């Protein structure tokens, strides 16, 4: 056993994984499947929630199962089972073939997959120091309670919600040519402080630490400065509650990575998913304005815009060794010099549309679901010698500096979006001048990214992300990260949300 394999959940590696795969793949081939792949998964998660420092939820989830995907006469068939036995694996293979035969009546496009080298027996483990599920619950509850009480100790803070989500995801994949065993660990700690004034007005402020492909060390000083943020948060919240309401209009914006990651996610990440561009999500998640005929032509944004997709960034939530079709993790261009230059692919679409090899974006959130093309880490590159955030602010006469994500919404072709944030600072003559309330920014994707005048340097770069990006029917969730620097946008429409809500 090598070092990486020794890190993997022993209860998972103790399962007869290769016997299960053999039973399923042999059965599928015997019944005439032209392609068959097998997954076994175990995902443990723990949720801890505190309300005003009191434990509200301590929940340990443990999901496991196996999945068989086949192609029979050009039609997909998929089945999953919960029992991890060779008999159940073979039965799932039989069911998958039966499903393919029922579904053939509706299929008019034969399914074929892009070639991918076989990698043999491989092992991959994400980058972390301390598996959070190995830390005693009492320690985690105690840490969250302590931080909650510190916030509650401030006069401005009426209530504090604290939450910690932790996941350990183990996947075994085999298609005969590649047999991969992988483990990923991720954590999402978050505290929300609530302030209420005497008139019944209230507001909230969240900590800005993003969910990350890290271990428990993320809560104790590695990768995030909790002490500084928690010390500053109550005063920032108090000032926000007292802040003047924004005057709607057009403003220059400096956007912090803690806010911009979500705008990238919605307006670039989803828009460059090829399954959306091809219409497979048309009835649900939606399509994309960035259709295939615009590849290498569409001026998505300004020339300072360089966006990549990757499955390899350290601590990235979409980072894997191999995807759920046995494709090795890669990095590739999506937008180059502001021009659309790539898409996110799976093996079927890569072949169908002449891209050659898949870039490894097939993912299923559990054994119960069929893999879909899911989002890679989609990240905006910083400028090599680019400015610091305060230098970007210095270039603005009349603007707003936006920090932290909050509300988001975008249309089904990824044109029109509206975002709010945690903290909005007025910029006057190149300097910050207090906070504003009731701010939302609203734009059309290509207008917004073409208004980007400057991107910050590597010193402003941060990896944001989400645990629960939703897509597909049946619905699946996927974790994904987005790295970006601070940016300067010119002339973006700002709404006053209080006016928007007035009857």
């Amino acid at each position, binding site marked *: 056993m090598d070092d990486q394999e020794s890190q993997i959940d022993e209860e998972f590696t103790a399962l007869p994984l290769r016997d299960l795969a053999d039973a399923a793949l042999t059965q599928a081939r015997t019944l005439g499947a032209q392609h068959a792949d097998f997954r076994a998964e175990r995902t443990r998660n723990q949720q801890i929630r505190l309300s005003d420092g009191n434990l509200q*939820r301590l929940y340990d989830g443990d999901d496991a199962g196996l999945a068989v995907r086949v192609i029979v006469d050009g039609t997909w068939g998929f089945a999953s089972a*919960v029992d991890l036995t060779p008999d159940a694996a073979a039965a799932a293979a039989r*069911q998958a073939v039966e499903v393919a035969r029922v579904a053939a009546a*509706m299929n008019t496009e034969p399914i074929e997959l892009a070639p991918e080298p076989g990698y043999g027996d491989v092992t991959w483990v994400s980058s972390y120091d301390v598996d959070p599920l190995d830390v005693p619950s009492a320690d985690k509850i105690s840490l969250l309670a302590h931080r909650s009480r510190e916030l509650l100790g401030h006069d401005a803070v009426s209530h504090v919600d604290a939450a910690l989500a932790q996941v350990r995801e183990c996947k075994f994949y085999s298609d005969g040519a590649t047999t991969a065993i992988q483990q990923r660990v991720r954590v999402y700690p978050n505290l929300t402080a609530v302030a209420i004034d005497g008139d019944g007005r209230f507001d909230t402020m969240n900590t800005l630490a993003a969910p990350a492909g890290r271990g428990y060390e993320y809560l104790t000083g590695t990768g995030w400065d909790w002490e500084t943020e928690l010390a500053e948060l109550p005063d920032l919240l108090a000032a926000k509650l007292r802040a003047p309401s924004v005057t709607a209009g057009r403003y220059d914006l400096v956007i912090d990575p803690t806010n911009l990651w979500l705008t990238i996610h919605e307006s670039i990440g989803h828009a460059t998913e090829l399954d959306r561009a091809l219409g497979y999500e048309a009835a649900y998640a939606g399509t994309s304005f960035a259709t295939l005929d615009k590849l290498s032509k569409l001026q998505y944004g300004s020339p300072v815009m360089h966006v990549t997709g990757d499955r390899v960034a350290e601590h990235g939530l979409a980072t894997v060794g191999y995807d759920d079709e046995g494709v090795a993790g890669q990095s590739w261009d999506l937008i180059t010099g502001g021009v659309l230059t790539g898409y996110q692919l799976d093996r079927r679409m890569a072949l169908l549309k002449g891209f050659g090899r898949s870039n490894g974006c097939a993912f299923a959130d559990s054994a119960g679901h069929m893999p879909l093309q899911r989002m890679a880490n989609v990240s905006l590159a910083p400028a090599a010698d680019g400015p610091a955030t305060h230098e970007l602010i210095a270039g603005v006469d009349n603007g707003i500096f936006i920090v932290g994500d909050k509300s988001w919404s975008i249309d089904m*072709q990824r044109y029109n979006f509206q975002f709010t944030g945690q903290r909005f600072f007025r910029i006057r003559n190149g300097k910050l001048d207090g906070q504003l309330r*009731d701010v939302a920014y609203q734009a059309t994707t290509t207008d917004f990214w073409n208004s980007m005048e400057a991107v910050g340097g590597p010193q402003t770069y941060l990896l944001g992300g989400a645990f629960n990006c939703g897509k597909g*029917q049946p619905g699946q969730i996927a974790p994904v990260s987005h790295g970006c620097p601070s940016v300067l946008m010119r002339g973006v429409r700002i709404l006053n949300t209080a006016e928007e809500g007035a009857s």
Partner: protein
Amino acid sequence: MSPQETVERALAAANGGDCVVIAEEASTANLRWAGNTLTTNGVSQTRQLTVIAVDKRADGVRAGVVSRAGVRDDQIEEVVRAAAKAAADGTPAKDAGDLLGASAADPGSWEEPPGRTDITVLGDFAADLGDAMRAADGAGRKLYGFAEHELRSTFLGTSAGLRARHDQPTGRLELNAKSADMTRSAWAGASTRDFADVDIAAMDAGLAERLGWARRRVSLDAGRYETLLPPTAVADLLIYLYWSAGAKEATEGRTVFSKPGGGTRVGDRLSALPVTLSSDPAAAGLGCAPFVIAHTSGEDSSVFDNGLPLTRTEWISDGALTALTSSRHSATLAGLPATPGIDNLTFASGGGATLPEMIASTKRGLLLTCLWYIRTVDPQTLLLTGLTRDGVYLVENGEVTGAVNNFRFNESPVSMLGRLAEVGATEPTLPREWSDYFTRAAMPPVRVEGFNMSSVSQAS
């Protein structure tokens, strides 16, 4: 081992300690299609054991939850031990209360084996859908959509003697038709318990009519419009209101239902019309669990409430707010009766016109198909944003005269209740936005004055 035996064995393993056990078996079958061809499909079966251990000590009562899929017979005791350890690791629970005993809930057909669905429930439907796709292909339409059926059997036991069982069938169908050039789009959905009542050909015919309406395009600017919302759009907005109507946060002063200065807005009039928003486990065609099933505690749910009987609850009565969702604990904080959330929602005013009749009585207004990507902008007013989707139509002098561009809206469902000009006849509907989480709804079409279309979306 059957789920009933699993419940008994887990309770026995608790060695007389307070304990709640939930054993569930669920099976699903689904088909998904796009551009007149199948894209994905599948069947699945899951088995989940959830053990809630209660640890009573002098300084308070602790609860720990362990929920595990695919537990083998020889692992049941291990799950119970893990839950006991989780409880011991925790700190006292504010929502602690007595577990419910044998008299709390009807055990249902406890001894019967769990229900199961499989791909054959979609067999006739798949054949009809294949016919519809071939017809659509010939007529220059593309069909997209999803059909799913799930059967979930839940067996709940407590160490206080309660045994309760619930079988929940859940089916949904979404059908989306687009013109060959993808510039026109229409949508219809249905909630069903068994797919026997689904008429795919009729749904497709309705969508073909709407695509026909969209042959004439009308560009309109952002602004406030008299707007006809169909039942699915009303469902999506009012489900969000329902999810935002928790007693605890309202009492804490942090929701639209908080009263400035303290307390809740229960008793406040929200609409001048005699509307009722209610949930009822026994609602015809919308049947759902008649007792609390809580895998974990939250603001207004409590694992200690497992098995608490649920009965018809009016959240809004005759236009006034009358109840907030609560656990026994959060109800105490709010000084209100305990009214836990129930898995269906009905909005009605008693009678009313059909949507075609409401179109016929409209001088000038917008008719929506459905809403999409709904999110909170400001919890103070419950201001929501989102998009119109798959067909916005201009109604002039009682007739649909063309299709309008899509809009981003910024609207509060609470404020909207105060601007209802007409409430139509309530009918079953599938909530377009929330059907991953909530499928059982009966809603009327409504006419809203000054619906705030904040900006134009280029999406078609």
